[in-house]
Every structure is written in C-alpha cells, then in structure tokens.
C-alpha cells in the first residue's frame, strides 16, 4: 500500500485550537453549536495568521444537529474572514465526527482537490432539540395543510394530553435500544474490568489533565471564551477537570446504569459537554510555500465497525491495527497514544483487546497489537476529565497528539476513538521535521 499522500501531497496539520470544554448547563450553555464552531474557527484563523482567501474547503462534524441549521459547516464557512465561495459540508460519525471531518478534508488534499482545509466539530449538549411526540407532530402537519380555519381547529381537537409530552432524544443505539452507559456496563462485565481499575483510570485522567492545565500545555490549545452577551464569564480551561478528587471520592459514587451489580459511575464516565475544536490542514508543499511549520503529518487512518449489539465501543481494537498496517508501523514504533475516553471501562476494554489473541484474529492479525505503555497513554488526561462534546472531541485529540508529539520530539503518534453504532477510528501521525 502506498503511503498516504505522496509527492508533496502529504497532509500537514498546521494548527489546532478549541474552546474550553464546559459541562453541559454551565459556562457555555447559552452558546449554540454553530456559535461555538464559528468562534473557534474565527480565532483559529486569526491566531494562525491565515489568509481566509486561501481556504479551499471546510468540513465540520456534529452529532446532534440543529434543526434550524443542519449544515453547521456552511454556517461556519460563512464567517466574515472567509470568502463566501468555500464549499462546506457537515459529517456525522458519532463521537468520531470531527475525525471524519478531518479525514474527509485530508482526503481532498491528498486527491489534489484542495490545498488548505479547515476541519473540526462542535457540539452543544446544553441545546439538544426537544421534539414533539409523533402524534402531536402529525396534528401540526395536518393543521398546516388545512385549507380552512374550521379544519385547522378540527386538527387540534384530536390532541390528547399525553401527546403534548415532549420527546428528549436519548443517547441510545437505534438498533439495540441500549444506551451508551448500558453498553459500557456490559463491556465492563464481559471483559471483567473491576470497579477500582475504572476509578483509578478516571483519577489518572483528572490528575494528568490538571497537570496539563496548570503547566499550560492544555491551555495553549484553548482559546479564552468571552461569553456574550454579558462577557462576565471567561472560561479559559475545561471545567470538568477535578484537581481535588480522590480515589475514595470516586469509589463512593453509586453506579448509574446497573444500580445493583454495576461498576460504571458518573465519575468514571465522560460528562455531557459543550465545546468546539478545529484544525487547519494543508498539503505539505502549500504549508512550506506559505511558510508554515507543520505540527505533524497524517501518516494513515482507518475506520472499523462491529455489531453494535456485541461490544458497542470495542471497534478501536479493529481500527488500530489497520491504521498501523497502512502506516507500515507496529505499536512499538509509536511514541505517544491518545485514546478517547468515553468510559474508563471502554478504554480498559480497548487496551485489553489490543493484547488479546481473540481480537487479533478478528482483526485478521497473526499476533495482538500489543500492550500500550501507560506512560505514553493520554499523557494530559482524556475525555473523562476534559469532557466530551461529541462532535468536537476528535479535533481536540488530533491537536493534543500533534502538539505533544512535537514537544516530546517523538516520531509517531496514534489516536483511537470509539463511536456509537459499534464503530472505531484510528489515525497515525508523524512528527514534522
């Protein structure tokens, strides 16, 4: 297999930025996903001193789209510092939506269709659309079609009180009806992940994220968010990171999804979060011509999927070896690993899967991917502490991995992201010289 992007068309990650990630219902609750996305892209462009006229395409990911602006990417691309002629599209691949945006944009660069692209994602879980019941929707549609006032009134006469109860979309699999938490709970049981290991992992996530925040490595990737219209709240870092939490506190929490035998708690899961993140991608030759020093190059990526009824969040175990194979690398070549932490139980299951012969066979490998060196894993914490705005997380991880790889003078970095629908993603980055 030829390397991804040859003859100067290697894809460079030139810059990345995100908003602070704020737990839903807190600092950023008044901001829609569109506003979050526009804010981060505007600031990214200006911080990177990028001439908007050079941008060829913009791709954005979101998971719970706004009914009023379903193509959020286009709303972002209509920012005043960008020309109106930038085609833009929105993608959705659950928690890997921003990754999808990035790989779609990168593909366009590799193909020679674009030289400069902006990709990222945004999510406001404080602004989830609340729907009318099916029965009430039918009435509204009938009323809007009614030709006379009498018929219109007639349509409404069919409404029963229970029809007025709104429907809040749950984070559940349409195919199985299982919620994300229930899936994590099931994985903890199937893979025998004890509660204390999960809590220890969560604690680690918080401690490392707190360290990354206080030493400025994480905040360097975060724009201060001046929250309109009052501007009296200015988050500059993620408000889900607990500097003061302890193993004891985490162990005291009650399991949420299986109150009797469960191990998954609010403490060892990622919280519902508002935020946006984006990266600037360029072809290697364009980056050089414009005088940008790339943070890293995309070496390879892979998506994988399995039966959502099985282990919903285990597909990174299948995606990672594919990405490694495409990169011509093995885990031992990897200096740094960033894994999306939906749940501690999921990360630990994934790590176990990397070491398992059974999963290696399923991935078509003769031997397992291997054991991930914990000292190279999520070195600034992960989604459990930082938070997880579905559509944005992939761009956050990409930026963090690229920056940290350079900081540590590493050569290769790998990221994995699990996604609803039984899907997984992996990408290999290569440090820029």
């Amino acid at each position, binding site marked *: 297999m030829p390397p991804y992007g040859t003859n100067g068309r290697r894809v460079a990650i030139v810059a990345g930025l995100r908003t602070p990630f704020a737990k839903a219902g807190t600092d950023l609750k008044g901001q829609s996903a569109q506003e979050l996305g526009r804010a981060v892209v505007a600031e990214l462009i*200006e*911080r990177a*001193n990028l001439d908007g006229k050079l941008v060829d395409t913009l791709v954005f990911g979101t998971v719970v789209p706004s009914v009023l602006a379903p193509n959020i990417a286009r709303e972002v691309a209509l*920012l005043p510092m960008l020309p109106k002629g930038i085609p833009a599209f929105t993608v959705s691949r659950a928690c890997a939506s921003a990754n999808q945006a990035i790989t779609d944009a990168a593909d366009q660069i590799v193909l020679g269709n674009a030289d400069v692209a902006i990709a990222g994602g945004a999510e406001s879980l404080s602004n989830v659309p609340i729907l009318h019941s099916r029965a009430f929707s039918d009435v509204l549609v009938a009323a809007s079609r009614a030709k006379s006032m009498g018929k219109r009134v007639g349509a409404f006469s069919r409404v029963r009180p229970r029809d007025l109860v709104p429907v809040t979309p749950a984070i559940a699999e349409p195919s199985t009806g299982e919620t994300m938490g229930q899936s994590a709970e099931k994985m903890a049981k199937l893979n025998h992940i004890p509660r204390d290991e999960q809590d220890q992992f969560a604690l680690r996530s918080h401690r490392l994220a707190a360290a990354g925040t206080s030493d400025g490595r994480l905040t360097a990737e975060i724009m201060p968010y001046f929250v309109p219209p009052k*501007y009296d709240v200015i988050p500059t870092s993620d408000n889900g990171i607990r500097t003061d939490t302890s193993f004891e506190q985490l162990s005291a929490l009650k399991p949420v999804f299986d109150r009797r035998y469960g191990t998954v708690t609010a403490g060892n899961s990622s919280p519902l979060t508002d935020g946006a993140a984006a990266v600037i991608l360029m072809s290697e030759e364009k980056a050089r011509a414009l005088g940008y020093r790339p943070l890293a190059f995309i070496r390879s990526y892979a998506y994988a999927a399995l039966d959502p009824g099985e282990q919903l969040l285990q597909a990174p175990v299948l995606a990672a070896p594919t990405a490694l194979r495409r990169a011509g690398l093995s885990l031992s070549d990897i200096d740094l690993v960033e894994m999306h932490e939906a749940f501690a139980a999921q990360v630990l299951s994934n790590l176990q899967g990397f070491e398992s012969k059974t999963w290696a066979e399923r991935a078509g490998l003769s031997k397992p991917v291997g054991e991930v060196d914990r000292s190279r894993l999520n070195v600034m914490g992960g989604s459990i502490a930082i938070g997880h705005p579905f559509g944005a997380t992939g761009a956050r991880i990409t930026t963090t991995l690229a920056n940290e790889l350079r900081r540590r003078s590493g050569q290769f970095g790998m990221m994995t992201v699990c996604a609803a629908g039984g899907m997984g993603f992996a990408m290999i980055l290569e440090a820029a010289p």
Partner: protein
Amino acid sequence: MTVVNETSAAPRALAVEMVEGIAVVTFDLPGESVNKFTPAVLEEFGALVDRADRDTSIRAVVLRSGKPDVFIAGADIDQFLTIHSAQDAEAMSRDGQQRMDRLEQCRVPIVAAIHGACLGGGLEAVLACAYRIGTEHPKTVLGAPEVMLGLIPGAGGTQRLPRTVGLRNALDMILTGRNVRAKKALAMGLLDELVHPAILREVALDRARQLADGRIKRARPRRTRGLVALALEDNALGRKLVLRQAREQTLKKTHGHYPAPLAAIEAVRAGYTEGRERGLAEEARLFGEMAVTDQSRELIYLFFATTALKKDRGVDAPVDPLPVDKLGVLGAGFMGAGIASVAAMQGTVVRLKDAELPRVAKGLKAVCDVLRERLKKKQITRRQFEDQLSLVGGTIDYSGFQSVDLVVEAVFEDLALKHRVLTEAETVIPGDAIYASNTSTIPIARIAEPSRRPEQVLGMHFFSPVHKMPLLEVIVTPRTSAVATATAVAYGKKLGKHVIVVNDGPGFYTTRTLAAYMNEAGYLLDEGVPIDALDAALVDFGFPVGPITLMDEVGLDVGGKVGLVIHEAFGARLAPSASLARVLADGRTGRKGGRGFYRYGADGKKDGVDETVYKLLPTGANRVEVPVVEMQQRCVLAMVNEAVRCLEEGILRSPRDGDVGAVFGIGFPPFRGGPFRWVDAVGAGTIVRQLEVYHGRFAPRFEPARMLVEMARSEKKFHPHAE
C-alpha cells in the same frame, strides 16, 4: 421599441425610451456620480413635461435613475452659493414650486421608480408624481435634509410631505433631516409599493399602463390610521398641539441657534391653516429668508469643506494607500473598543489586545453593545451583527498580530507604557505594517523614539465615543512616510470619518485648542463663577455641552494629565487652573467615577452641580458674577487664538482643516462654521482688540497670535474667497 434621444450640443441628463406608449425616462446626469437638479436639468424636465402634455402617443411616464445607487440626491448645492439676496432665493423656490406643480398636473400619470437615495429636491419631485415605487434595498432611502444646511424644503415639500405621510411623520423628516428607509417609507405612505430592484422597471411599466387605463387611481394620501393620528392630525386643534410641541422641542434642542427648523414648522402651519397657496407662498418666502442666514452660509461652507476633505488624500506625493484588512488594537478600554467596533462595521478583522482577560472582556462587551444598538435600530441585520461581532477577537497576547496591516495603540496616556507597547508590537507585526497611536496629547515623535521604523509611525486621534464622533485627526511627524499617511487617511475615510492631517506637536490641533478653552473655563472657576452659569454661557454660544460638563465627561484625571503635558510644552500661557487640580486631588474623576463637578446618579445620569465642590475652589463658598459675554469671549477667544497659532506654526495645513477639526472634534458651534470662519465673520481687527483687552488683564494669557495681528493690519481673511 424606439429610442428617442434628441442629440444636441450639451450632453443630456434625461434619456427617453418609448415602450408601448409609456415614456421611460432615465435620469443620468453626465459627468457626475449622483443625479442632482441643476438649472439645466430642470429645463430638461420642463421640456419633458411639455412634450408629454402635447404628444398624445405618450400615455404615461416612468421616471427612473441611471445611477447605480442614487435616484436623485437633491438640488445642486453649488447654486446656493450664487444667492445674494432673500428675493433671489425666494424666486428660486417659486420656480421650483412651479416646476413640481407642472409634474403633478401633467396630462399623463408619472410613476417614480425609486432605487437609491431620493433626497431633498428629489423627494419633492417624487411627491408630485402620481405613483411611487421603491426598491427593497438598503441604499433606497428618502429624506428631506434641507435643515442640515440651514434651509427648508423649498419646492413644495413643506406642503406635499405632510399631506402624504401625515403631520407628525412629515415634521420628523423635515426637522431632523433623517433618512427614512424604504420599508418605513412604505408604512408611512411615502411609497405606494415596495419591490425587488430586479423587477422595478417591469412593475413601474405595469403600473404606468394601469394608471393610463384608469385601472388604478393616482396615489391618494394615505388615510391616517390609529386613534392617536385621528386625535392629533385630523383636526385643527390636534394639529395646533402637534405644531406647538414641535416648536418647543426644536427650541429646546437648538437653543434658538438654528432658525430653519422653526421656519419649516411655520411653512407647514401656514399650509394647514391658510391653505396650500398661502402655504407655498410662505414656504418660498421663508426659504428665501433662510438662504441668506449666517447659519445657512456656515453650514453650506462646512458641507463643501467636508466634501473637499473626502477627496483629499492627505499627501501630495503620488502614492497609493495600502489596504487595511486586519487591524490590531492595543488597549481594550473605551477608545480601543470604540475603534474596534467601527473597524468591524467596515468588515475589518480586529485583534483587540489588553493585559488582562477581564479588560478584554469589557472591551468586547462595549463592541457588542455598539453593534447591538445598530441591530436594534435595524441599521444592520442579525447576520451582519453576528458577522461584525465575530470579526473582533479578544486576546491577551500578540497572537494574530503577525498578519495585521495597521496597529492602533490606545493604551493609557503614559509615555513609558507607550514606549514599551510600541517596542513589543514592533517585534511581532509585519515589517510593512503601520503603527498608529491614538494619543490625544503626547507628540508622536516622542512616542516613536524607540521605533525601529519611525517612518511607519503616526497618530490616529479618534474622538469619544468613536462610533458617533465624525472626526479623525491624523498626526504625522517629519519622518512619517507618505504611504503611511495616505493609508491612515484612506482607512479613516473608510471608517466614515472626516480626516484632517496635522503636523506633530504637543496636543496637535484639537487637544491643544481645547486645552486653551478648558483652561480658561478653569480660571473662571478660580475667580468664583458658578459652575452651571459658566456651562450655560457656552451652551448659549452654541457648544453642545458646557466646558465643565465636558470636563466631567472626559474625566478629570485625563484632563489633568493633558493639561500638564500642554503646560510643559507651552509654558505659562497654557498653565492649567487651580480649580481642576484641587477637585482632582479630592479624588473626583468625573462621571466615570460618579463624582465630579456635578453629581451623578447610580445610572451615571447627570444631576445638578455638586455644591460641595465649591469649598475646594480658591474662592470657597463665595460666588462672583461675571457677565455671560465675558465668559463666552474668554473661553472662545482662548480657543480661537490657539487655533490660529496652530495654523501659524504649520500644525494645521489649512483654515479649512481647522474649521472641520473644531466643529466635528471638539464641538465648536457648526452654525459659526469653525474658528477661522468665526474670525472672518467677526473680523480679525475686532478679535485682536478683544484679545488685547484680556491680555491686559490676564497676561501672559491672550497675547494675540502673530498671524491674527498681521491679518488685522492687512484686513485679510482666512477664507478670502468665501461669500
């Protein structure tokens, strides 16, 4: 379809195209960017109406404009300069009225197809048309700006407008000169229909046909709607009340300095109470009266002065200004935020930097508030509001400054701080970026001392509040390059400002002349005059607010600092008063601190004079009385004498710049035209004599400027060619 365009020696403004019996008349004044009524154009219109009356193949007329975004901008203002007597002007008005009557009485219906600005005489013309269609477009506005030139509508406008849109709407338009957007014009009955610009011609043709066939009726004055209108406009008593209120409000607003609004009210009144014929006669008589007032002459002078400035590139060298697409603003205080907001309104990307996040946040909120006000007033759409807001990015580091075209420094007036900021910024910004300081006082050459590229350093002195104050003073040093100057001037114009270019010096022009005026007000306080009496005296002279109120507004700390710099530079002549120093020492900073010479409510609203302030002043509780005229003369003479020195020293390039700067920057009464026009009007000899009297009492103050003495001796004027 035939094009009938009689060829003659002079290029014609009106082109007529016959479309199935409809004469489509396109008004496109050759050699001009806008359409206006010159005597020749009026002749052409007359001939057109004659032809429409005679030629039975013409069934209707459509009047449209050939200019992209202007319908008719009004009368050619040049012709007002030729007016020498009220009789001349009255005759001119009578002529205009008769021409509009001819339009109205034309045998065939005339449909006005209005796209773009329709102002003054243009508005009066369409009011005489049978049907008015406007386009749904931001450039389509209608207005009667005559009062802004000290005039009144003189071609039937005071009669037709009230009958078309109702008394209150008409008074609002005529007395404020405000433009009305198309949508509002439709609502008030000024337009009969609103269409997309793309179908304006088609719809106008349709309507013309229907009018010709009698299928629709000529535009009828809209019936007044609503109970309030019924009570106030449909009966003589209600109208009397409305007119009286309008008169009272006008007097309150103008302090009796501007006769034109009152004349307009009188003309409107005459039409209602004595009928249209008498109304038109009054209109013409009053127009004649207004046209020869000093106020009108000065306002027209300012119109021409600012028009000339628009064409002034600020440099003689043949250089092109650089584009400014990205602006860095250093300091997110009130000025910095104000500059950021006007830049964002013009589509410039802005990096707004301050040392701490809360200060940046405060600046961004100020930007947001300015833009939100525009949204509320429907001057911009929600999308424009959001876009303009997202152009301004707040930062506490120099991120993003690597690609700015222009930096405006608006930090506190402290030379060491300004040096540090300039040095920091120069390490980051591109080599060809221009660095401007928004200082109001400190010489630019001093600010540029540590600069590695002083040829790119200049001053851009904006006035507060930036989004409302129309002046920008660009300050250049001997080292400033022509490109830098041209760029600052061009960008200032893009921001909608009147830009004057002045040479460097302490306080430049505006701050220095204002300091002389404020100092003198301070001396009057030292002598014991009551604060409110002093303020009232200068408001009575025509300033928008009195000097002490202004001191509270500007901030005593700021004023104090300016005073010291000016004193240091110019010596005893411009020494600050004791009063200001003492009140400042008491910890009063003016309105922003809630305490100054006046009392302020919790909401920042001015209350009365703070009587406790008197015990801080040199005369303590004792008040003395100084005649109003003396208070006015001393303050104004101090200012004007200093203005002349600025011209004498070459700080100012011309008296015109000095007039525009004083009127639009520091509130010199517009109806007096500016300091130099005022000297011309009063006479340099008289001014010098007055100065000498005060010099005798208050030396070293009031020593007449050399140039003034010279002009008094040679009986010259600053504006020798003015009427």
